């Protein structure tokens, strides 16, 4: 399912996150990259260098917006100022779809700037789905919600995380940005089988995937995005790709960022799993 209604009927291939240390390289060398993902909030400004850089990138590349601050799961109403700025950016970038996280992070107008896990309840799913619908109606662009990595679970949860994600996206009729690294991190922190997670999703709703590196500590794993992708995550990615089909895939590398070429090389490893999928397709049929 390379192209579907949740990713604007596109088939973008393998992208990487647009990050400040790589600006000069990208603008001067103009490397061949399928697409860049931007953090929307970094460009929701009124002027100056961020928008100048973005416009130069847009002249050469396809850009998809990924947000970190809508907080569909917060009980606060959607922030209209935020949404208006986001819509202006959507018009500027022409992003075929827009993603943000299935989490909460603000309360009574105060922001944690974190992606906090939700209680997996039917009531929370209903409220969250309603906010996703509201945001999509206002922004007029398909929305994919991303599963977050987490370090805590709530007693009040009534279902598994994958059941909750499925419930939300069905109620909201939106797409999934499937972060396989986040699934792996959470599976290790909470003791579930990551393949159960991937197997039990509505695969036809997956509009994009994320891959990334993480860090292991003695008692838990942190989602640090400062390493190459680890083998268990690649294996999970391969499995997810078999189920969801070839999907726009993005490598996140946000800290201890190496050279552009190193990041891009790491991202392009995903092509091998997609090629394997295509080779095995006739046999499966």
């Amino acid at each position, binding site marked *: 399912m390379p192209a579907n209604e949740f990713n604007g009927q596109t088939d973008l291939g393998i992208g990487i996150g647009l990050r400040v240390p790589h600006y000069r390289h990208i603008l001067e060398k103009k490397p061949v990259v399928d697409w860049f993902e931007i953090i929307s909030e970094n460009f929701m*400004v009124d002027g*100056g260098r*961020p928008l100048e850089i973005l416009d130069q990138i847009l002249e050469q590349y396809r850009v998809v917006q990924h947000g970190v601050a809508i907080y569909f799961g917060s009980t606060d109403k959607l922030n209209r100022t935020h949404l208006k700025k986001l819509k202006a950016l959507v018009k500027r970038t022409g992003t075929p779809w827009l993603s943000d996280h299935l989490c909460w992070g603000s309360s009574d107008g105060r922001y944690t700037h974190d992606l906090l896990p939700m209680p997996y309840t039917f009531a929370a799913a209903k409220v969250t789905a309603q906010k996703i619908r509201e945001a999509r109606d206002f922004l007029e662009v398909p929305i994919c919600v991303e599963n977050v990595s987490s370090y805590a679970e709530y*007693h009040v949860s009534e279902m598994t995380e994958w059941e909750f994600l499925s419930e939300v996206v069905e109620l909201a009729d939106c797409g999934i940005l499937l972060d396989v690294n986040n699934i792996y991190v959470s599976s290790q922190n*909470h003791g579930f089988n990551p393949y159960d997670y991937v197997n039990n999703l509505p695969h036809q709703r997956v509009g994009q995937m994320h891959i990334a590196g993480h860090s292991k500590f003695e008692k838990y794993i*942190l989602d640090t995005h*400062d390493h190459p992708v680890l083998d268990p995550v690649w294996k999970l990615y391969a499995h997810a790709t078999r189920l969801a089909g070839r999907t726009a895939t993005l490598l996140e590398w946000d800290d201890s*960022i190496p050279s552009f070429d190193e990041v891009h090389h790491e991202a392009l490893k995903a092509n091998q799993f997609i090629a394997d999928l295509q080779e095995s397709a006739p046999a499966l049929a």
Partner: protein
Amino acid sequence: MQSQWTDGRAMREVAAEWIKPNDRLTSFERLQIYNRCYWYRVLDCLYDDYPGLQAVLGERKFRALITAYLESHPSISFTLRDLGSQMEAFMEAHPEMIAPRGDLALDMARFEWAQIIAFDDPAYPAVEVDELLGTNPAELRLGIQPYVTFLDLKYPVDEFALAIKASEEDSLSSQASNVVNEAPKAKRRRTVRLPKPEAVKVAVHRWHNMLYFKRLGEEQFALLQALRRGETLEEACGVALELWQGTPEAFSAEVRSWFENGAALKWFCRYREPKKSEHS
């Protein structure tokens, strides 16, 4: 993390009520991961925004200041860009936290916040000098671009900031992606001698989207500030003339050069009534 919840119960008890433990971590320990990440993230943001203030106060005092600031001013914006917006006011309200270098610390905080404004505040279409020809100075009001800040400083923190920048070791840091950060820490830099008192007037602005600082004379500063307040061109010139020590002819020539210079830097725009939040 705070040891007690708002109702007086122990945090461990409250955490256990809401969060499941697992075979490796208690409920409290799992909550603590989030608490630690929150503080890393917001403190790290202020370390990035205020390296000069950190150099003025020293690591221990700076950490105490920004921790107290964040307790008093948690983020109310969707973007971390705005996190330090109340720092100057907080420092003025808590002089004991920045003593004995209060004036220098305040100058540095103002200067560093002005750089954030210069980085990404809007730019309106610039007014050219030619457009001013034939207009009545008694009626003409000129706007100053929002991204330009004029500062009346007791210390030459512009030079100090450049020295700090030059002393920093290069490092690549994360940007807003909500990834989990490592513990925030001061950037490694060589020791920079603190500046001695010297009154200076500085414009913090951008040119071709790069940050710049420009020293201003006292009269030029007074004129530009008067324009920003919304005074007419004639009134603004009058304010500057009161400070002028030379001949009227020299003043006229000087004013012309100020305007040519300001227009070349695209500082002037159509006058707009200031919003409540607009900086001075």
